[in-house]
């Protein structure tokens, strides 16, 4: 995405770069849209778990808004997008840490701060995505620590390699809005986390059902809405490219949902709501790397094709002992991989001169380049996540004790219940109640008869 910024800057504005109001308007909106995706994810995930762990699941997303956001501002942004000097192929420098030299002056055609915030929303949701693999068992404290470490050690470097001028970018890997940086990264990390933590104690023994499917649909709807900023905003301007990325984000999930519903129907005899919501998200994941590089009809095809690997991966996974609870790997890891590779198949310079021609345009090389990006991210993110969790496991327990797990994570981790009737709950009075209560001092209104 950012490797387009200079080009766009040239097209849209004179050098030295100046802030273009129209582009700024669109990027402000896009940033707000992507920020909304994390609460949306909280509902998509929260609806899929049992009621007794729903708040914990939602908080795993909301907490990322706080923790990852702060880490991003303090140092991660600089590692991802700062100038790394000699080591720039590998990692950014610290020049922009503590928001140094990040002000309102133009980066491309928008204020640098807006670019910083836009990228921050990506870092936040990517980390939050992982939580789907460890819900209902991972302790909240260690999870927060994991968010910090993962953002610094996995997200920042990979984002730098692909978008920040690192080696994958120079290799010409195409990743318009984060198929590799966001979805493959999060997906493989989720898989590893699920393996390291092990399955929920009830997994495979009892039926664990979504406690609120409407929340899942709400999450999917808001995710699609926010994704227009995610992909459309990755053009970094309100131009034709944004229009293309936006429309492809409009078309691909439609095709995926339709195919998904048909697969559901033929396998189980029913088109399920959870399936429809999942299909939408998988379609959005798959179009993410391709959005600005392929044709709209290509997006329809890509969306339709992308349903298959993720669908069958979910079906297969559910029969194993692998408790990637909300199928983050099948949805984001495999969906992102499908999208990244198909980008190398469908991409056309005719639609984006800053892009490349792909397999169908007679350039199989691009497919290889895409595969390199995929493989790198799978290997690095998977390995590093394994190391982070194993090391953390040496200093603290990552998961709750079985009895705690049985009680539910909401009560055990947050001391709260998602839905309480208040029955049989006794108020614990604080020690001191002021003698003269203000309310009585001002004799309350007499009530209606």
């Amino acid at each position: 995405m950012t490797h387009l910024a200079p080009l766009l800057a040239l097209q849209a504005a004179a050098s030295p770069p100046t802030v273009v109001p129209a582009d700024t308007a669109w990027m402000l909106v896009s940033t707000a849209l992507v920020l909304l995706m994390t609460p949306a994810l909280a509902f998509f995930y929260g609806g899929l778990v049992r009621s007794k762990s729903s708040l914990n699941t939602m908080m795993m997303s909301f907490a990322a808004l706080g923790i990852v956001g702060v880490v991003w501002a303090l140092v991660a942004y600089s590692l991802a997008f700062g100038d790394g000097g000699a080591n720039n192929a590998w990692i950014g420098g610290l020049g922009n840490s503590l928001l140094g030299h990040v002000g309102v002056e133009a980066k491309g055609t928008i204020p640098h701060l807006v670019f910083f915030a836009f990228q921050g929303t990506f870092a936040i949701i990517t980390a939050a995505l992982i939580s789907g693999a460890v819900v209902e068992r991972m302790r909240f404290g260690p999870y927060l620590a994991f968010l910090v470490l993962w953002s610094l050690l996995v997200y920042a470097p990979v984002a730098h390699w692909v978008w920040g001028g690192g080696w994958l970018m120079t290799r010409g890997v195409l990743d318009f809005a984060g198929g590799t940086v966001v979805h493959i990264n999060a997906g493989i990390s989720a898989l590893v986390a699920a393996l390291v933590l092990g399955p929920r104690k009830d997994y495979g023994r009892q039926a664990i059902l979504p406690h609120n499917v409407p929340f899942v649909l709400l999450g999917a709807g808001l995710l699609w809405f926010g994704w227009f900023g995610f992909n459309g905003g990755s053009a970094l301007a309100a131009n034709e490219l944004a229009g293309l990325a936006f429309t492809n984000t409009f078309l691909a999930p439609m095709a995926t949902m339709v195919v998904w519903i048909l697969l559901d129907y033929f396998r189980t005899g029913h088109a399920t709501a959870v399936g429809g919501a999942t299909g939408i998200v998988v379609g959005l994941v798959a179009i993410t790397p391709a959005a600005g590089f392929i044709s709209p009809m290509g997006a329809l095809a890509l969306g339709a094709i992308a349903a298959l690997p993720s669908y069958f991966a979910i079906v297969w996974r559910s029969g194993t002992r692998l408790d990637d609870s909300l199928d983050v790997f099948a949805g984001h890891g495999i969906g992102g991989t499908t999208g990244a590779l198909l980008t190398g198949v469908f991409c056309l310079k005719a639609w984006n001169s800053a892009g490349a021609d792909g397999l169908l345009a007679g350039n199989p090389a691009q497919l290889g380049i895409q595969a390199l990006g995929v493989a790198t991210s799978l290997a690095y993110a998977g390995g590093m996540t394994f190391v982070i969790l194993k090391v953390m496991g040496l200093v603290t327990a990552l998961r709750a004790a079985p009895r705690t797990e049985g009680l539910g994570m909401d009560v055990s981790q947050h001391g709260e219940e998602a839905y309480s009737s208040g029955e049989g709950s006794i108020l614990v009075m604080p020690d001191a109640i002021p003698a003269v209560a203000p309310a009585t001092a001002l004799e309350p209104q007499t009530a209606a008869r």
Partner: protein
Amino acid sequence: MKLIVAIIRPDRLNEVLEALYRADVRGLTVSRVMGHGGETDRVETYRGTTVKMELQEKVRLEIGVSEPFVGITVNAILGSARTGEVGDGKVFVLDVDQVHRIRTGERDEGAVTPATPAMA
């Protein structure tokens, strides 16, 4: 004094309430329950997980009545709750030692009004 406990289909509740009303049975307590019996299980699928739902939604009625009302009440329920399909439910009649009306402290017959059928 008896306590009549009936398990019925949710979608017969209104008919049963009406039948009891006509039988002059005024007081009762209702609760949502789930039942297992001869009905065939529903199958549901959530992503890769397929589950068999062994419990069916039912409604439980609890009615304290004086002896003369036992037959009337049971028949009212049997008549109004039946569909003839497996899953119609059961009626249990239990002995009651004491009944108290909290509001007044009245006991036994006095606590469940009317104590005798209107037409009797």
